[in-house]
């Protein structure tokens, strides 16, 4: 809308959406896949990366069946309809559970149509699994049974609802997917079953429940349990464990399950049903969830809670890497064989322009022998095929070698990875481990720091320190011996060295004369005699605003130096990310404290003036000056094994400061202990109130300003 000429405009700035980030970078936008690939470095930061997989083609969208009609052969277009599952067998042939068409579609490795498999009365099959021998197992969901079909298409067996005394009448059996292990045992996922996976023996008899999830009890549930009556509790929805969404079996027989829980989203189960990955975290940051506009349309599905992860399926490729797809956020995540995050990528989904490589509604994923990813989309009714890029292939190779402990062989591969992407810090991790293994500890130290591995850094430093001690032990021992002798001589001949004692006395006298310096020296006195020292601050004129400011500046400098010089082991933040921002919050808190303390003290019969509180609070920070720098210095020669010592001193410093604040209040305000405690609590409360008031006023005034501006705009438009 144009403004009328001659009117003073108020022009404002607006931040443009970051989609144009890619547009500015020279030359990057030309050949990129439609999604952004990210990885996580050792600091848990997300780093952009080259694509690990590149969208290659689409399969399953051009299915033509040969039909014979009126004696003539005809090709009939027979598209998929809401397919729910995908399976790729050892020969790379693709089987799709074409649910709404009530059939299983069999495609060859290039995506060409081979045949469709329909057993009698197959209704809404949602799962398919093909054994190494070629036998096809179908989860015939509509008929609530499992079908076993031979590779020729003959029906071999059908397994209905399992009967057992462990399964009661109310159990809702609706098989949606299954895997079959080497012995022929079937692991069936039943829709809505919270008891876990239904395990059937090769004859279809019930064998047990497998891999059940734990009930997740939230804090609210615990509170409710404590406070609600029986009747209210009985009306609550039962907290049940989450259902298992999907299942996969790898070549070694480990079974992976995916559930929509917060913990243990992906489980790696052995034959006894024990989760090997109890402590691992899966799923991507909430920031990346709900990125697609399609997600808003899907909230009608009450099973999917917005914000919860929507992991729908997983697969394990030939390298042991795990790929998980998330329906809610349209993200694909790849984990290494030990559950560590390798990559994830996500791209914006816009309705109306579906893109190759971004599925709108991914329901199943699988890999073939060439480690290509096949993602089945049930709203687009096709399969996106993603090929690993050179970068991705190299990375997998290097990760596998590192996992197997072949550090020496993994080193050149990691170097290749770094050559392609020098910013990929997990590569430094691999190189660092290789260097550590080769006992090149200096190099390992540098690389561990680059990759952000504190444990590795600490270990390498420990080794280096040990080596240093071993090399210099003789020199150290000699020095210590000579120093001991010198001190013994000095004490023995103290009388002869009187001039030293005189000199130091005169020095102290000089210090005493200068008022400022004596005030500064008083800080030391406070450390030793806190209560008297603080009283002296007021009545002995041993403190002034000037000395307080000087002390505060010292504290600031020491804090900055501590932040900057603390060793990496104890502050695992990359050096370029350490910032001085914390100073501002500290200063504001301290100032608020001083003001509130004075105010509270004055209403509660305290005797301190504002100057006393101000000066006293700055002197109370003195332990930081004393201990801060030595701590930072010492941290550079300690390792994680000595972290308790470091922790002790650091906590000690803070506790000492805290105690000094306590004694300051007690002595300056002339309180007893109980009154001091009360004063402190009230001060804290006052600080909170003060800040709440400030933020309310700030918010209201900005709203007021906004309001006037809007009125002005409306009137002038």
């Amino acid at each position: 809308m144009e403004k009328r000429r001659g009117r003073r405009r108020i022009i404002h700035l607006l931040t443009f959406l970051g989609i144009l980030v890619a547009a500015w970078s020279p030359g990057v936008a030309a050949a990129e896949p439609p999604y952004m690939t990210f990885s996580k470095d050792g600091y848990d930061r997300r780093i952009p990366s080259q694509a690990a997989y590149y969208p290659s083609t689409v399969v399953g969208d051009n299915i033509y069946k040969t039909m014979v009609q009126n004696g003539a052969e005809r090709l009939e277009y027979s598209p998929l309809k809401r397919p729910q599952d995908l399976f790729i067998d050892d020969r790379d042939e693709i089987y799709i559970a074409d649910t709404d068409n009530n059939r299983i579609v069999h495609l060859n490795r290039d995506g060409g149509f081979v045949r469709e498999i329909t057993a009698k009365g197959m209704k809404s099959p949602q799962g398919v699994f093909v054994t190494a021998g070629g036998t096809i197992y179908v989860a015939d969901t509509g008929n609530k049974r499992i079908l076993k079909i031979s590779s020729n298409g003959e029906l071999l067996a059908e397994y209905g609802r399992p009967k057992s005394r462990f399964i009661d009448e109310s159990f809702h059996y609706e098989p949606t997917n299954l895997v079959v292990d080497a012995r022929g045992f079937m692991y069936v996922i039943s829709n809505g079953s919270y008891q876990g996976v239904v395990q059937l023996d090769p004859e279809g008899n019930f064998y047990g429940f497998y891999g059940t999830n734990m009930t997740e009890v939230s804090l609210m549930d615990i509170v409710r349990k404590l406070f609600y009556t029986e009747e209210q509790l009985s009306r609550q929805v039962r907290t049940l464990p989450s259902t298992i969404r999907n299942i996969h079996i790898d070549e070694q027989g480990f079974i992976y399950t995916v559930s929509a829980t917060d913990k243990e989203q992906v489980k790696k189960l052995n034959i006894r049903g024990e989760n090997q990955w109890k402590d691992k975290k899966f799923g991507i940051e909430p920031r990346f969830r709900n990125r697609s506009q399609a997600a808003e349309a899907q909230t009608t599905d009450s099973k999917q809670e917005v914000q919860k992860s929507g992991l729908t399926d997983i697969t394990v490729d030939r390298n042991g890497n795990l790929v998980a797809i998330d329906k809610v956020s349209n993200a694909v995540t790849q984990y290494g064989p030990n559950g560590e995050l390798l990559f994830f990528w996500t791209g914006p989904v816009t309705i109306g322009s579906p893109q190759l490589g971004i599925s709108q509604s991914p329901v199943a994923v699988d890999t073939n022998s060439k480690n290509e990813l096949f993602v089945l989309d049930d709203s687009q009714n096709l399969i996106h095929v993603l090929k690993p890029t050179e970068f991705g292939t190299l990375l997998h190779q290097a990760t596998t070698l590192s996992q197997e402990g072949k550090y020496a062989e993994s080193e050149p591969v990691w170097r290749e990875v770094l050559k392609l992407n020098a910013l990929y810090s997990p590569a430094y991790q691999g190189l660092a481990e290789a260097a550590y293994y080769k006992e090149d500890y200096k190099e390992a130290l540098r690389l561990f720091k680059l990759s952000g591995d504190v444990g590795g850094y600490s270990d390498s430093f420990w080794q280096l320190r040990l080596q240093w001690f071993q090399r210099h032990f003789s020199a150290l021992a000699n020095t210590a011996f000579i120093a001991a002798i010198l001190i013994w001589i000095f004490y023995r001949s103290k009388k002869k060295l009187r001039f030293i004692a005189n000199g130091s006395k005169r020095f102290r006298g000089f210090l005493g004369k200068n008022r400022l310096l004596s005030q500064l020296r008083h800080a030391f006195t406070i450390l030793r005699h806190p209560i008297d020292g603080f009283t002296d601050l007021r009545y002995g004129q041993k403190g002034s605003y000037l000395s307080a400011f000087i002390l505060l500046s010292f504290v600031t400098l020491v804090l900055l130096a501590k932040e900057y010089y603390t060793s990496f082991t104890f502050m695992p933040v990359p050096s370029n990310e350490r910032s001085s921002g914390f100073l501002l919050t500290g200063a504001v808190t301290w100032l608020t404290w001083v003001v509130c303390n004075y105010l509270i003290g004055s209403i509660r019969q305290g005797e301190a003036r504002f100057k006393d509180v101000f000066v006293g609070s700055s002197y109370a920070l003195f332990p930081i000056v004393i201990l801060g720098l030595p701590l930072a210095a010492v941290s550079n020669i300690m390792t994680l094994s000595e972290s308790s010592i470091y922790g002790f001193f650091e906590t000690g410093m803070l506790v000492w400061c805290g105690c000094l604040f306590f004694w300051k209040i007690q002595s300056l305000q002339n309180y007893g202990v109980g009154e001091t405690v009360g004063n402190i609590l009230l001060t804290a409360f006052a600080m909170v109130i003060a800040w709440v008031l400030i933020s309310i006023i700030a918010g209201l005034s900005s709203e007021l300003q906004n309001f006037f501006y809007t009125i002005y705009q409306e009137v002038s438009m």
Partner: protein
Amino acid sequence: MQMPARWKRLFVLTLIAAMTSASIVTYTIAAETKKPGQAEAAKTDSEQEAKQEDHAVNAQESETGTKAGTSQTKDAKEGATTGSRTAKGANGQTAKNSYRSLFPDDDSFRLASENANLRLYVDPKTGHFLVKDKRSGREWRSFPDAYGWNDKDNTNTWKKHMQSPVFIKYVEFNVRKDQIKETNVLDQKAAIERFETTDTGFRLTFDMPGIGFAIPVEVSLKDDYVETKILEEGFKDGKTSEEMAAYEAKTKKKDKNARIAGLRLYPFLGAHTSDREDGYLLIPDGPGTLIQFRKDRPPNNNFYFEAVYGEDYAFSNNNPSLSIRQPVRMPVFGIKTGDQALLAVIHDGAEYANVLAAPSKSMNQYNWATAEFTYRQRFFQPTDKRKQNGFQTFNKDRAQGDRSVRYYFLNGGSPDYVGMASRYRQVLMEEEGLKRVSPDEDAIRLPVYLLGADSKKGFLWDSYEALTTTSQAEEIVNELTAIGVKKMSVTYAGWQKGGISDFGGHFPVDNGIGGNEGMRQFIEFAHVKGHDVTLDASSYTFNNTGRDGFRSSRDGLQDLGSVVIKYGGRNETSRTLVSPRFMQKVLEKDLGKFYLLGADGLTLGEGLGALLNSDFNERHKATREEAKGIQQQLFDEAVQTLGSVRAEGANAYAWKYVDALDGLPIENSFDLFVDETVPFMQIALHGLIPYSSAFANTADNYATYLLKNMEYGSIPSFMLTYAASQDLIGTRSLYNYYSTHYKDWSEEIAKQYGRFNEALGDVQDRMIVGHRSLAAGVYETAYDNGKRIVVNYNESPYHGDGYEVKAQDFAVVHGGRS
């Protein structure tokens, strides 16, 4: 108990009524919940059965006597011989009545103009025209082609749109300010006024007094093209205030105040169904993309709609409609059907045009492509200080000027995208004045980007981090020349004061990398070695330092809502887009300084050639057309002062000024409904301007990327720094570049230079005359001196006619150095 008779009767009646209504209700509910897809599938299935029978019956019938009738029987005979799928052709006969009733018969056309190649016929009643190509005997219509017409596949709304020569989008400002409505000349009962034939064609005006629109159209014939134009003179985009007052006085209702927002002129020119699957639409997505005619597509609403020369941020800022596709650099599109092909080039008003293309079954039965001209655009008008609340509306003033599209009908050569690209090349040479390049030696010039410096976030303040000082740059150039890279075009980026993240106040060259003196020495050194050096000047597009007298609130580019457009996300430096007129003043002042450094030229891009935005800043107002003029003027001045200019990702209007192009796209935007990517842009430009694509060292698939470059005839480019790549971590803008350390790449660069020089060195001034796929994953590019390069992307070798191409490699066939 005895019930009185009346009660009994009443009771029975209500019972019957309840039962009938219940059954009606349940029946309708059941009918509604039946899935629409299934219903459609059932419909088409039954249709197919019906057509089968019809074909059997109608194959015998033929004569209808008219030209259209004979063509139908011809089709029917073809249908019978070519098999069952094309049997649909015959259905034209039974549904012929619908087609004939909607579209003008061939005998309602009369000759309007004729030249050596084409004949133009016009139907004065509807305004449609027919073009007959005298060279090939083919015809083109300004309305959908008859073959494959199926009445049931098109909704009534679309039937009306297809009949209308003009498709109108408009906004009713007094009803809803933010909603677009669609109509056409038929719905508005337009009258054709002032029809006259001119010596090159005809002219008429569609008059719609009811809604207040008047659209004057001119169609003219020249050489081998037809130009359809919407004239500015006589164009009426809505009622005048007197007319509105008259309307209100007459009907006692407020006038809706309809204003034209967009127009498509003859949108269905060349539209064909997918019945004969031998055809495609060419869209300017990336280097050029084909949408094949496919009969069986899943029914969804996919279509391609993009603004020529990219989005205009002055309207799309804060608008949730930002496109995910690559920007359109060339105002072209094309249609091929059978052995006919046309290339459309948007001529007047290209900066206000959008290219729209839809495959069959997405909106209607036809594959069609057209240009849509925008007169008014939607934008977000904020109403509060924080720019978060507001409303969407359209601008009151419309864009002015003639709008025209030239349709070139191809003849001879190959009626495919290669032919279209050759014709576009001819257009570029004739209209834009591009000439065949004259290379001095048979050695290609390798584009190398050197990154000078950036700033890093530091502990207390940001620090300046030099990545490649001028003396280090000399080392790099020295080393590369020594290992065999004979000729390079070095672009120095990030040379400005403050590094690459500081925009504004570029001069003097930062002392951290050597200052003006260092730069001068480096340029001299490079000249001695035989390379040329350009300085990156695309950074003049932004300003974030306030130097050069820039005040963001006063001199920034503003959108219609008076919001200054700023870039910058979470991890990015924020910078403000500079008003083009202001940028012009700054750059003109600095041109002399570039000259003093001895630079061979500038590398432009961004707001100089790639981004085209209107500016609504009161001080520096510029329409999109004027902004284009400003950019072109700057290009011209740069060439005059310094001698040469390179551009990165530049739009077609800048091509006539540049000596080389960088950042040419090689991939489409990954839409699912499009098919293959074709090197349309590359075929058109090869031999006229040397070009390269994105940097090879940041490509996702390095080996495949190089092969693509070889196939497209482009020279790979590299981005290098002297500093180790790890030093880029923590910088403000360069953390996205994965691997730039020159030592990691120098050998590779030398090797690739050797290979590309041997393959492409002697065809630098040659045009590409052929491009096709020999097998899956094997492509052949042919140059006009007989040289052919075959590229094999597969993992197994390819055996051709007397030659073999190794896996993931290329081979030169028939011809090499002359």
